[in-house]
């Protein structure tokens, strides 16, 4: 049986019944990676030896009767998560030789639960991008159409799960970076409430927006993963103390169990001009499904939506310019050979080490924080951020969830937007407000376009409402089967 096509839940059942071993599972995924990754490029580093050792250890734990849901489960980890003794590059030349001395907290949690880290997945450089085209290690290809992007910045993570090169993957989401790949690659992902998951050991892009995001085959697998990765961490001063319900236990057994949930549809996310008609059709279909399941669906308004992108690109870049100041060629990472003095060492290490998009965002951030411009841009953006957050607070005072598309289009072609940064930034139009407000969002498949490209939707909830998101999302996945489709990859990795 093709183990690499199974979910965490299914693999766990097989392990419990002793029908397979953890080593069998890891071998299946390693085989799959060997078959397809040369055409997808989802991985920067494949940890073959370490993964097999971890799998053997997991089998030993199994023999002792110690099993968790993650025992023996191969997970891909985005290459901006620090992994001890494993190359961690952030898809940048400036860290192309960096081997961390410690694990990110979340990575430790995966290991403690008996999970296997099968490899480090590709991303847009320093997580800055919406298409995974800015990686120093080359673009990731969408398994559904190798001439198209998988979305970004966690494109490697999304593509790995979509092509069964990992059962699940961890990414990061600052402006939509796990949700856009979920939409483009037909997988399910979550951006948790800000503070739910420790950011310790995860390379910072924009500290008030970054959040760990799990990506998986379905909502049930994300409910499982969340149990293990959520939690307060004293090493992350922005991490919150909050109850973690048993998400798996709380999932509905029948779609009708979510009857009565109130779902808002914000008119600002459903304009005719600029959204693919196939996307509008799929969202309309999804709305009908929720109505059939007994939910109360009605129109709402989030009036400051149109200002979200501008707000984000001021705040995120400002924070990024500060966070990326540490890459200076002094203590770690790439150091230039062209320098006569310290100033040149800094300048040339960064000039030679960073890619164009990273430089652009550092420059934008530096500008908006510079003397004379701080009030006009950064302080202003922080105030608009409050208004965006208040829009959501107002809707959630009477609604359980909000339903929106993830992207105005299906996966665009490689190269289509690289020369137009502003156009690229507008890809995030439906995902970005969520990070500004800090609320959780579940992204899941809701259809296919006429040319067989995946379409995704998001369920948004109020602060700490992941249980409701999982319930509604799982109910949707009981009533539909979009999430079960796999891309048509044949043995050689070409489009079937």
């Amino acid at each position: 049986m093709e183990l690499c096509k199974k979910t965490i839940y299914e693999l766990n059942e097989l392990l419990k019944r002793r029908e397979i071993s953890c080593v069998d599972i890891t071998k299946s995924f390693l085989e799959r990676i060997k078959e397809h990754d040369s055409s997808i490029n989802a991985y920067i580093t494949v940890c073959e030896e370490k993964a097999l050792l971890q799998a053997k250890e997991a089998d030993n734990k199994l023999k002792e009767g110690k099993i968790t849901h993650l025992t023996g489960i191969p997970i891909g980890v985005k290459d901006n998560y620090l992994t001890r003794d494993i190359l961690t590059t952030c898809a940048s030349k400036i860290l192309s030789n960096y081997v961390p001395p410690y694990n990110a907290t979340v990575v430790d949690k995966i290991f403690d639960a008996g999970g296997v880290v099968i490899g480090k997945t590709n991303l847009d450089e320093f997580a800055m991008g919406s298409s995974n085209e800015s990686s120093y290690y080359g673009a990731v290809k969408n398994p559904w159409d190798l001439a198209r992007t998988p979305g970004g910045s966690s494109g490697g993570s999304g593509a790995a799960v979509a092509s069964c090169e990992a059962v699940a993957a961890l990414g990061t989401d600052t402006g939509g970076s796990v949700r856009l790949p979920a939409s483009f690659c037909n997988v399910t992902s979550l951006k948790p409430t800000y503070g739910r998951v420790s950011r310790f050991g995860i390379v910072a892009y924009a500290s008030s927006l970054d959040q760990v995001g799990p990506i998986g085959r379905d909502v049930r697998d994300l409910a499982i993963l969340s149990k293990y990765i959520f939690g307060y961490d004293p090493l992350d001063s922005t991490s919150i103390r909050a109850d973690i319900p048993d998400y798996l236990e709380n999932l509905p057994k029948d779609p009708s169990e979510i009857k009565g949930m109130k779902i808002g549809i914000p008119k600002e996310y459903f304009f005719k001009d600029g959204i693919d008609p196939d996307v509008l059709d799929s969202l309309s279909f999804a709305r009908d499904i929720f109505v059939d399941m007994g939910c109360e669906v009605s129109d709402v308004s989030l009036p400051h939506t149109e200002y979200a992108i501008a707000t984000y690109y001021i705040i995120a870049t400002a924070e990024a310019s500060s966070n990326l100041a540490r890459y200076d060629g002094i203590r770690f990472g790439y150091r230039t050979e062209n320098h006569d003095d310290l100033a040149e060492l800094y300048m040339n290490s960064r000039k030679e080490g960073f890619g164009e998009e990273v430089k652009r965002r550092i420059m934008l951030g530096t500008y908006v924080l510079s003397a004379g411009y701080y009030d006009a841009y950064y302080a202003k953006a922080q105030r608009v951020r409050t208004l965006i957050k208040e829009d959501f607070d107002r809707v959630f005072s009477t609604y359980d969830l909000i339903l929106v598309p993830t992207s105005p289009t299906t996966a665009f072609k490689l190269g289509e937007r690289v020369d137009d940064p502003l156009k690229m930034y507008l890809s995030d139009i439906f995902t970005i407000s969520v990070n500004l407000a800090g609320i959780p969002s579940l992204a899941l498949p809701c259809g296919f376009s006429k040319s067989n490209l995946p379409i995704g939707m998001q369920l948004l909830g109020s602060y700490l409402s992941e249980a409701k998101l999982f319930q509604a999302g799982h109910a949707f996945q009981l009533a539909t089967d979009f999430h079960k489709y796999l891309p048509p990859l044949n043995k050689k990795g070409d489009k079937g």
Partner: protein
Amino acid sequence: MINVNDVKYIAKLARLEFGEDELINFTHKFNEILKYVEKLNEVDTENVEATSHVVPITNVVRKDESLKRWSESKILEMAPESNDNFFIVPKVLS
């Protein structure tokens, strides 16, 4: 609208540098983005407080105790240039 000299100045602040050929293209794209973010001027933020942080927690502190986690040699492993317990850098004071 900012010009090529403004871009050179910002680059200096950010410890970056652009080649002459890159500068014009970069300045052009930069201006497009700046023009777009001017949009925020349409929003009335008169009595609105700034949100710097979405989570309702403040001033997270811990005891001022050393949590020595790694040896000096471990930390220096990734240094581009090192000697003994020191990172080697070009002369700072001339």
